[in-house]
């Protein structure tokens, strides 16, 4: 599993676009929002946590369709399936690599982008924390969706259709943490639920993803 992570990270670094693309998309999305809703600071501050969460979610989606598709095309997935490593580990490794190249940088960038949307101060911290806690679930759910659609020629659009409804609980709890953090409210409950969603995804989805991969490799 570690080797899969290391290889995918190295490939992402070499290819250049790996990190940058998702981040650039996130930045542009954040910049566009005030043009859509107007420059009033109070208005922006109110919607900032939600916008920044939805933006991170969409940025996560960008690179998902290549998660297994590249390995499928060049045969690496076939070879990994016959290698003495569990496919569950491979699926988890790919999801972790995806998180390290998208979820983690997005989480770190989000507090900075919060400044653009006039997010009140303690909100930055909670936004970053909620994304750190929630984006692993997004990557794991995405890996499951990518595994389902890996055999399809144009699976990208279908992937979004499958994955976005699965993102609902994570988005609700994550954005709620960020919103409550910005408004200075108690946020223990959504924080715990968000962590629970991520932990549950971590425990279950690598198996579902590996199962879907096995079906697709037949």
């Amino acid at each position, binding site marked *: 599993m570690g*080797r899969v992570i290391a*290889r995918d990270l*190295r*490939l992402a670094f*070499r*290819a250049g676009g790996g990190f940058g693309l998702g981040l650039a998309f996130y930045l542009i999305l954040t910049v566009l929002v005030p043009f859509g809703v107007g420059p009033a600071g109070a208005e922006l501050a109110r919607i900032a946590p939600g916008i920044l969460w939805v933006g991170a979610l969409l940025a996560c989606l960008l690179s998902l369709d290549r998660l297994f598709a590249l*390995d499928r*095309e*060049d*045969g*690496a*997935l*076939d*070879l*990994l*399936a*016959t*290698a*003495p*490593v569990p496919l569950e580990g491979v699926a988890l490794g790919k999801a972790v690599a995806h998180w390290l190249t998208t979820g983690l940088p997005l989480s770190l960038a989000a507090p900075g982008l919060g400044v653009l949307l006039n997010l009140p101060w303690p909100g930055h911290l909670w936004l970053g924390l909620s994304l750190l806690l929630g984006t692993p679930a997004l990557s794991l759910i995405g890996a499951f969706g990518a595994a389902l659609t890996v055999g399809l020629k144009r699976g990208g659009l279908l992937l979004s259709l499958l994955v976005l409804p699965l993102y609902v609980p994570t988005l609700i709890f994550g954005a709620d943490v960020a919103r409550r953090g910005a408004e200075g409210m108690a946020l223990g409950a959504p924080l715990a639920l968000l962590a629970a969603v991520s932990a549950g995804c971590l425990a279950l989805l690598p198996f579902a993803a590996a199962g879907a991969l096995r079906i697709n*490799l*037949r």
Partner: protein
Amino acid sequence: MNAPPLVLDGVAVARGGVPVLEGVTVRADPGTALILRGPNGAGKTTLLRTIAGLQAPIAGEIAPGPDQVAYGAHADGMKGGLTVAENLAFWAGIHGTGGIGEALDAFGLARLSERAAQHLSAGQARRLGLARLLLTGRPVWLLDEPTVSLDAEGVGLFGQVVRAHLGRGGIAAIATHVDLGIAGVPLDLAGFRARSVPAEGALAWDV
């Protein structure tokens, strides 16, 4: 290397739900090569994928299991963004083996080891894909048209590597149209063309 023989007993395989081969029965002892022949579409690749465990046979028994088998396909899983040495190091790590230096030398890739795989010529890339087989440490090699895009020197090197593998008691099943200078048991798949009704029909869809 102390390998069990490769035994196919009454194997039937399907491609896209359509049976292509049935009743394939053959045995290759350690140290021998199995040369698969047959026109395009005869089912060479499908049979090799089935032996590799990538798809289940629709009938028959295959021994040994997939954990003894290394599959060398055209899609060889090499990443263009990684160097030759990094690619091999990844697969050596996955299989828990070593010997990257020997594998590079065997295919004359040593001076290219720091080059990114995407900058290799087609023939060099093919050699890299074949070098991976040495790192699997598995006794049974399945080779699907291994010499495509190899030059004369490459074919020669490949022949040497396979002969050395057989000399160590390994087994190779090779689907090829060219003479590799490897003595082996020929297996003409034209004789095993599937004639029975598709598996689908057996499911009582006649309603």
